[in-house]
């Protein structure tokens, strides 16, 4: 029984982290209907920025966010302008090729600068844990999960309580209509993509206290994000959280009771079931 509860607990924590990875992805997909296969590699950029700042200045990854967030935002704006804007209205195939090209470029620039070997960041709380009733919860993991929840909440508020958020949702629903209302669609999309990149980098930095990074982790991350987005619904931040929690828990429990290898198969089976019952996801249409 303890095995089950431990698996569940870790699963919930990791689920929040996965949701964190997916928020930026679902935002971009929902708002401008662009599939960004390089999203996972943006997360990895955040990881390596945190690693670099830690190795050079010994700043905790959370402190390095002061640099990571503006950098990723600027990066996102540039990428939007150069790559995303031209392909936005083209079919899915163009998105796939363009973002795969971007993925390859970014991944290899990271390899050129940092090498392919695995990197970690070891802070004072990397291996500390909180013990509650025999269940151990890693402090670093809890911090990342907590940050994720705050970011989800903030994102929701941003989308529903601010003018910018309203503009974003308007563009997502009906571009012509949004133009008509005087919304600068292009600028909105650009900022939204910048935000998506920030969220990606943020999540990457936030997990560095306990994660192991490598330049090629990007593809796995974006595939998980895809699964989450299908379950939760494109463009829905709350959906990303629910999706993340579901796959986190499934992974945690199946790994604990059977084996990690079976857990992966289980995740895709869930995806297929979701596609058959409700492909739009649980929170389709809502942001």
């Amino acid at each position, binding site marked *: 029984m303890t095995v089950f509860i431990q698996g569940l607990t870790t699963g919930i924590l990791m689920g929040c982290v996965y949701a964190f990875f997916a928020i930026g992805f679902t935002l971009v997909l929902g708002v401008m209907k662009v599939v960004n296969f390089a999203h996972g590699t943006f997360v990895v950029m955040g990881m390596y920025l945190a690693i670099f700042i830690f190795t050079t200045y010994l700043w905790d990854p959370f402190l390095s966010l002061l640099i990571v967030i503006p950098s990723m935002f600027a990066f996102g704006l540039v990428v939007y302008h150069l790559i995303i804007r031209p392909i936005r209205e083209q079919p899915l195939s163009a998105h796939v090729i363009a973002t795969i090209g971007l993925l390859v470029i970014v991944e290899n620039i990271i390899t050129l600068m940092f090498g392919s070997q695995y990197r970690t960041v070891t802070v004072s709380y990397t291996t500390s844990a909180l013990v509650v009733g025999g269940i151990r919860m890693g402090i670093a993991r809890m911090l990342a999960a907590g940050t994720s929840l705050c970011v989800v909440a903030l994102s929701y508020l941003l989308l529903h309580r601010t003018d910018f958020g309203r503009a974003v949702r308007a563009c997502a629903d009906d571009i012509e209509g949004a133009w008509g209302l005087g919304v600068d669609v292009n600028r909105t999309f650009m900022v939204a993509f910048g935000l998506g990149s920030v969220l990606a980098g943020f999540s990457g930095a936030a997990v560095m206290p306990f994660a192991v990074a490598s330049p090629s982790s990007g593809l796995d991350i974006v595939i998980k994000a895809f699964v989450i987005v299908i379950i939760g619904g494109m463009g829905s931040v709350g959906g990303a959280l629910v999706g993340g929690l579901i796959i986190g828990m499934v992974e945690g429990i199946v790994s604990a009771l059977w084996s990690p290898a079976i857990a*992966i198969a289980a995740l*895709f089976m869930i995806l297929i079931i979701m596609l058959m019952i409700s492909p739009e996801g649980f929170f389709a249409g809502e942001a």
Partner: protein
Amino acid sequence: MLSESPLKKTIFSLFVLALLAVPFFIRSDYLLTVLIGALYGAYICVCWNLAAGYAGLFSLGHQAFLGLGAYASTILFVKYKITPWIGMFVGGMIAAIFAAFITFVCYRCRLKGMFFAVATLAFGFLVQALFMTWDYVEASTGIWLLLQNKPQDYFFMARTPYYWIISSLLIISLLVTYFLERSRLGYRMVAIREDEDVAESLGVDSSRCKIWVMTLSAFLTALGGTFYAQFYLYISPENILSIDPLITMQVGTLVGGSGTLFGPVIGWAFFSFLGEFLRGLPLGATAVGVISRIIWGLSLLLVILFLPTGMVGLGRKLVRRRAREEGKEGSL
């Protein structure tokens, strides 16, 4: 007005002649291996193009058919001593059945466009994950085939027989594409791809068409899987069921021009030789692989940004421009 069939036939014959001539000029094992690799890539691109380019079935799980073909023929050979020459057709049938099933289910659940893509993506990863843990197929260890010379069992020591086999496969797949383009099924496919609802209202049974095309594509892809197994002599979920072959299929087809006959071949020929060329540059051992991949990725980006209709699309634009310059045919 030029009729295009004779033209395509001419180009096609030239291509076949070039393919036939090669082994007489090229002796180096290394070059033959590179060529065989390029032709194999072109072949799987053409197979994927049937489904994705012509019918708009953007399949992100096609590598599963490759793997099913490879594993079917290999298991049949290793465990039951059935020659891969027969095994490959069994593999093809298995892939075809799965393809038909998936397409049917997607049709029933109204999964189109991006959702169809995600469904196939899930299928592809599911197959990989299952094979990674299934001991009957040696799970993640993979299966090694012994290097030997046994033509009746699809094994050759020399490279040239493999070259003939893959060239034949490529030519067959191009012929299939060519005749499909001109068949009733082909016209229906394009109608569905352009606008499914309109096509249906005109009486096209889109589910039948989609299933046929996907099945055909899967069958041919599986034959390629067996070739891979017999040539590279090692299959594992990490090579043939991974996303790498899928990226090959997409890059070649989409860059060359999806929905065209030669697009996939040209697209993949360009990128595979680009890759080989870049890897041979004198940039220092550690840097060369990385820099060549960066340039590769950059080329991909540039092509898609500036040639959205692929290389064949560029060719068509040039033709149109020349026709406009040369003649005053066609009034404004």
